[in-house]
């Protein structure tokens, strides 16, 4: 570990200082974070129960017939994890990078660019993780009220799976943001995220698509995340989950590497 040890000095996993900084900021404005929690909840009620009452049951790929809400709940968990990660790594990260010049200050300390990137990813995962926890609480409460949304105790693994989804999108989101020049560029990011949210097997099975389109959708990260989490909540394990995991972990790690390289170009001139 790099750094001088002396009185009052702790041996450090330095990225956590970035998290501490963000916690200090959000101590003042905690409501901002909470707002992101309601979005998937509203979708669950409007689509799951509202539209779901018109649809009735949906058939899973193993042939079981389940209420529509059971089908979309894991997808909403995945997308709330994605949203939490993207909130932090798009606008917020951009603001700190370009306007607040936060990282210009941090790099005058022993912190490295990789520490910065890791710290921000960790923070994004904490935010996404918080949404995932909130959503899990809702699932549990609804289950207790006689509206079970999960079919298997394996659903517990949906939480770490949601963290993996966070990691993937935080890494990729941060990497993308390092290429952003002005606020309007974020519209392009939305142009990718919005269709992904609607068409990645979130609201209906992708069997609805022709084979070529199915193959394409299977290559998108949110599809992999939805597939992984749905496998756990429905107890419908299959080997493709390994692909989900590798895909998402790789996506986050490559994003992290690109981010710290790009930060070097932007900050160390």
């Amino acid at each position, binding site marked *: 570990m790099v*750094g001088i040890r002396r009185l009052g000095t*702790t041996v450090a996993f330095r990225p956590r*200082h970035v998290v501490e*900084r963000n916690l200090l*900021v959000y101590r003042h404005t905690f409501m901002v974070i909470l707002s992101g929690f309601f979005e998937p909840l509203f979708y669950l009620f409007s689509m799951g129960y509202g539209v779901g009452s018109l649809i009735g049951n949906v058939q899973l790929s193993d042939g079981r017939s389940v209420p529509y809400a059971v089908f979309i709940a894991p997808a909403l968990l995945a997308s709330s994890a994605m949203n939490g990660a993207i909130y932090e790594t798009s606008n917020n990260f951009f603001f700190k990078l370009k306007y*607040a010049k936060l990282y210009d200050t941090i790099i*005058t*300390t*022993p912190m490295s660019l990789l520490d910065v990137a890791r710290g921000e990813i960790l923070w994004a995962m904490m935010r996404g993780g918080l949404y995932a926890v909130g959503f899990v609480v809702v699932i549990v409460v609804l289950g207790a009220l006689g509206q079970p949304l999960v079919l298997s105790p394996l659903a517990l693994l949906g939480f770490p799976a949601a963290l993996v989804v966070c990691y993937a999108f935080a890494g990729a989101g941060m990497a993308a943001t390092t290429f952003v020049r002005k606020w309007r560029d974020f519209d392009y990011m939305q142009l990718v995220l919005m269709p992904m949210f609607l068409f990645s097997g979130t609201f209906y099975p992708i069997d609805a698509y022709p084979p070529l389109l199915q193959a394409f959708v299977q290559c998108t990260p949110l599809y992999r995340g939805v597939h992984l989490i749905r496998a756990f909540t429905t107890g419908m394990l299959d080997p493709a989950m390994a692909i989900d995991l590798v895909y998402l972990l790789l996506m986050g790690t490559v994003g992290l590497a690109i981010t710290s390289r790009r930060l070097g170009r932007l900050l160390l*001139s």
Partner: protein
Amino acid sequence: MTNPANTTEPQIHARGLTKRFGTFTAVDAVDFDVAPGEAFGFLGPNGAGKTSTMRMIGTVSPITAGTLTIFGLDPAHHGAKIRARLGVVPQADTLDEELSVLENLLIYGRYFDLAWAESRRRAKELLEFVQLTERSNDKVEPLSGGMKRRLVIARSLMNEPSLLLLDEPTTGLDPQARHLVWDRLYRLKQRGVTLCLTTHYMDEAEQLCDRLVVMDKARIVAVGSPRQLIDEYVTREVLELRFRRAEDETDDSAHMDGKLEGLADRIEQLPDRVLVYTADGEAVAATAYERGLRPASVLVRRSTLEDVFLRLTGRSLVE
């Protein structure tokens, strides 16, 4: 790792230090050493290469060519180790506006891996030192320029640095605020902290620096103590003459008409006045008057680093 503290080995050692951005050369093969406990200055106009030099010393800008060591360490390989002992006051006040005054210091201490309690102890002590204790819990944004500057200085001291880098520490501050900053920097120097600063104010260089280099167009054009530079490049006194100029006159030569001939070591024509370099300003003024010279105003003053800079580059320091 060797620990160069308490030795006479230079804190900063640069030979042929060069920084290029594409085809533009910002710093062109400069040599200098900064000794422990010394206050060392880079004096020069905007664009002379001062900030680029400071950024290289701060290990946030890779060097293009030459040698640079800080505490005897290579910034390319020991950046974190160097930065752990470095205090940095950048040109712009890069404070964290989403945090309070105290929190700015607290978290900065954390970046240096200080324990929370230790960070808090130092933060409070430093807020006292820069007279900002009453503003501890305020947001940063409404602070005055002078307060922000003092807060940045306090922040740079959180890790108890042995070398403090200050990039134009008082630019944009009013005279009172400048004097308060100078006083604090002087106290740090008394405590043995090495100061390395850039400025384009000659009075700042004279007040704070034991030794300085004059930079112009990416190069070092002179080295010495403020007194040495003045003795070497200019005379003891300067006589400033102003004339009432007619519309069509571009300089004051018509007014002088050779009347200063043989009286001065050197004469410098500026857009608004004439500078006459001489050991005895009063005597020259009197003789010129006898010869019939009638300037609108006459001022005799001691020569300054501004005059040194003018002599070396033909331009004034602050445009």
